[in-house]
């Protein structure tokens, strides 16, 4: 089926099968930082999706024009340009979300999902699959951010999207919206995904999504193993 509907496959693979945060473990920083509320999670996810789709589109267009030696700086500039754009849009139209996301909006630039997809997919594929790939990965990212945000908001504040939940809101467990709760919920979610997928959890974060893999060629890993 993957052969027949390859475009459909490019789109759906990012949502569940290769979900960037829960399966390939990329983009952990925003996942942990902005998910104190479900709303922030969705906002961050959609902003990242926008940047991912646009940068995949442009990089795929320019893939033959960019010299291989300087491709990473080129990718970063393209991505940073779109990040600046979304910053402006958010500041203008949804200022409360803009201030809630704070510095993490600028930090979309160095989100390893975007550079990783640019390096691994968009710079090697045609425009249409690249856009679909970006859209799928972005929606997968949004989905996991939304899930994390919901769990933390419901347990931590006893409400969901601002609606109070009976019984829970009387005595919320504040630790869940604190940094410690973020690590805990993400750990449990990854374990849950492993349980459902019935596979062994990854021992460590893989090099496949690391944008620097081309530069370091896994040296960072071997170095730490030798030590």
């Amino acid at each position, binding site marked *: 089926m993957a052969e027949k509907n390859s475009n459909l496959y490019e789109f759906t693979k990012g949502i569940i099968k290769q979900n960037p945060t829960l399966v390939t473990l990329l983009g952990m920083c925003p996942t942990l930082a902005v998910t104190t509320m479900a709303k922030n999670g969705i906002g961050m996810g959609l902003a990242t999706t926008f940047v991912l789709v646009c940068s995949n589109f442009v990089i795929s267009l320019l893939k033959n024009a960019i010299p291989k030696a300087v491709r990473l700086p080129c990718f970063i500039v393209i991505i940073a340009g779109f990040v600046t754009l979304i910053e402006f849009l958010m500041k203008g139209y949804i200022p409360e979300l803009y201030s809630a996301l704070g510095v993490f909006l600028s930090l979309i630039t160095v989100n390893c999902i975007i550079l990783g997809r640019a390096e691994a997919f968009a710079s090697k594929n045609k425009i249409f699959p690249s856009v679909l790939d970006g859209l799928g990965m972005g929606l997968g990212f949004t989905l996991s951010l939304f899930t994390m945000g919901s769990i933390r908001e419901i347990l931590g504040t006893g409400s969901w999207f601002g609606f109070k939940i009976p019984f829970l809101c009387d005595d919320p467990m504040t630790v869940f919206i604190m940094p410690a709760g973020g690590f805990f919920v993400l750990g449990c979610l*990854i374990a849950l995904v492993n349980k459902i997928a019935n596979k062994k959890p990854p021992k460590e*974060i893989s090099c496949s999504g690391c944008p620097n893999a081309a530069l370091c060629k896994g040296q*960072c890993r071997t170095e730490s193993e030798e030590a």
Partner: protein
Amino acid sequence: MSYILILIGCVFVNNVVLSQFMGICPFLGVSKQMKSSVGMGAAVIFVMICATAITYPVYRLLEHFGIEYLKTVAFILVIAMFVQLVEIVMKKMMPPLYKALGVYLPLITTNCAVLGVTIGNIDNGYNFLQSLTNALGTGLAFTLALLLFSGVRARIENCDFPETFKGVPATLIAASIVSLSFMGFSGII
């Protein structure tokens, strides 16, 4: 006095990794051994201070022309260029230092803590010296978190977890407990 406050605030109260969630990838990836934690930490402190020293005048320049909104683009370019430059210079001039830190340098370009610090300095309205102090403090905080956590991880490796929790989930839950202990510092400033 305010410099000491910034330093303590960075290292303990608002620890860059454990309460601001920047630089999680190297935190989880490199913290397996104490030796590599120290190497990575030293490289991050070095790059953070230099990046702050460079991006501060760059921002003033952007401000002069009224194009502050380009700071993300300008900063990431400056940092990427600087890291490459340091790598080349270090390889030629200081081979022993390169051997110790070289591997970690390319990894730092996309470490969000470095970009986060330079943007944070601007957002908080720090002056030049305060920015440098903030960079030093954040670098120290990163190193402290990595060092502490490498000790914790050495113990985790030998524990008998349920099969689904082995590896990254267990590491994250351990990080949650370390982060919980850092909550004890909140309120000392």
